[in-house]
């Protein structure tokens, strides 16, 4: 019978001996750490220059603060300042207004060449966040939806991005409070659930 074990053996099992010493408290500290990751309000975006002045979105994921890292052809990387972002978005907004933006032009061919920097930013999640004042003009435009996908360096980067933002999404139809009446009613040491 392989399972007849002496105490000295069992104490070697990681976690078990800790438990005998500290019990459930041994893990309770971590509860605070894992309690909650604040809901992401921004996006962390990496944009890569794929040809001179042509850009694609390399990757992006939810973050608390919106940051855009630009990787240039010569290999240097830098973080766009808020002023730079605002300026680029303003320029793009003007192009959308007068219908000269590649993002809203259904006939634009951008699959291979990449976008301008401003277009790439707007196509990214960061664009959706900081450029939200552009409003429906951009986001309800079918051409934008199509080009947004091709603005990513690889299909998997797009898919990953959509998925990670979906996960952070707060649904308004969530239900909670199940068994709350039972929770207040039950107060003794012994419930009936144990079997």
């Amino acid at each position, binding site marked *: *019978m392989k*399972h*007849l*074990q*002496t*105490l*000295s053996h*069992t104490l070697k*099992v*990681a*976690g*078990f001996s800790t*438990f*005998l*010493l*500290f*019990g*459930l*408290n*041994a*893990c309770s500290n*971590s*509860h605070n750490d*894992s*309690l*909650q*990751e604040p*809901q992401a309000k921004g996006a962390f975006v990496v944009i890569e220059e794929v040809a001179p002045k042509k850009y694609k979105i390399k990757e992006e994921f939810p973050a608390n603060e919106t940051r855009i890292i630009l990787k240039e052809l010569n290999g240097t990387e830098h973080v766009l300042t808020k002023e730079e972002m605002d300026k680029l978005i303003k320029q793009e907004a003007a192009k959308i207004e007068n219908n000269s933006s590649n993002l809203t032009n259904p006939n634009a061919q951008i699959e291979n060449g990449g976008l301008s920097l401003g277009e790439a930013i707007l196509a990214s999640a960061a664009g959706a966040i900081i450029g939200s004042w552009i409003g429906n003009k951009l986001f309800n435009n079918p051409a934008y939806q199509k080009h947004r996908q091709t603005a990513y360096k690889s299909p998997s980067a797009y898919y990953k991005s959509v998925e990670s933002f979906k*996960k952070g999404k*707060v*649904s308004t*139809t*969530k*239900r*909670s*409070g*199940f*068994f*709350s009446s*039972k*929770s*207040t*009613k*039950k*107060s*003794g*040491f*012994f*419930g*009936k*659930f*144990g*079997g």
Partner: protein
Amino acid sequence: MKLLQVKPLSKEYLVKIGFLWHSDIDGSNYIADELVVLSKQEAKAFEDAANELYDMFVEAGDFIIENNLFHEIGIPFNLVDLIKKSWESDVHWHLYGRFDFAGGIDGAPIKLLEFNADTPTALFESAILQWAIVKENNLQESAQFNFIYEALLDNFKRIVTLSEDTSNFEELYEGWNFLFSSIKGNIKEENTTRFLEYIAKNAGFNTNFAYIDEVEFDEEGIYYQDKKYELWFKLIPWEDIAIDEPDLAVLLTSIVNNQEAIIFNPAYTLMFQSKAFLKVLWDLFPNHPLLLETSFEPLNKMQVRKPIFGREGGDVAILNERGEVLEEKKDVYGSLKMVYQEYVPLPGDERGNFYQAGVFYAYEACGVGFRRGGKIIDNMSKFVGHIIE
């Protein structure tokens, strides 16, 4: 039967390690200051019995699914789809259960009383406290049939590896979050749940705990404080979800169908938990030495009448061969469907106490502990550890 007097664990120590239900409502100690002394053969027989029975439960489960016997074993209609779905795929891995046995001591044959497959407690006592007693009493050189902690640690990893071998867990685990839930206000259940969380964390999972009423659900998943959980353990009986919170049953069915989360123990464990399942087992394995005759009609012999989803001995009655009640524990389950199971006495000591063995099963039989009480083991019973001579 042989008992060994031991020095009990102090209440201070029990509180320190998080075991807060050390005393019963009447103030008596919940953990006995004695150990049941088993022979190696007796311990081995408990292990073999649980392993053999689990295979029989799986076979009978297939039979129930194939023949649509859900109504016969009392499964609420709003869980049938979820049970079928959970039975189809290995990802709905059974984490652990506890077989309750009569016999097994002093030459009495082991007989299955029931299988707590969905929400078994007495886990903390069996896994941790009976070892702690042995240590406290300097009995280190003795042995126990108890590797519950290790077996659960491995079985948590199997949720990801889906095979006996757990060595590639780190490689396959993609950081899925694991939430553990119990009802607010029940310290016994909360501690069992937190203990399981502790083991899962040691296995390598990202874990958290939340009371059931604080957990959020929609068709796309299970959330706590806006974080999504792909894995959810609930120490809440499936039949309570079906009957008390039918909306939750609908939501959980969608969540599982949409593959948004996996729920433990899986819904099919409710089949195992139903006492009516014991009748199906008897039909499929008539006169099997580990089984007691079980019927939906009264038997013409000493028998025990049990509600199909009762807990802790509630509304269990001992009847004579004419069906007259000799002893009964009144509770809230009286309106449920009943089964009649052949009566066998539990092993007893000289003071008139009776002992019921609880054998834990987590992929394999992994440990035994005892409950001591009257002829019907109820929620005032005591926990008694064991030692192997």
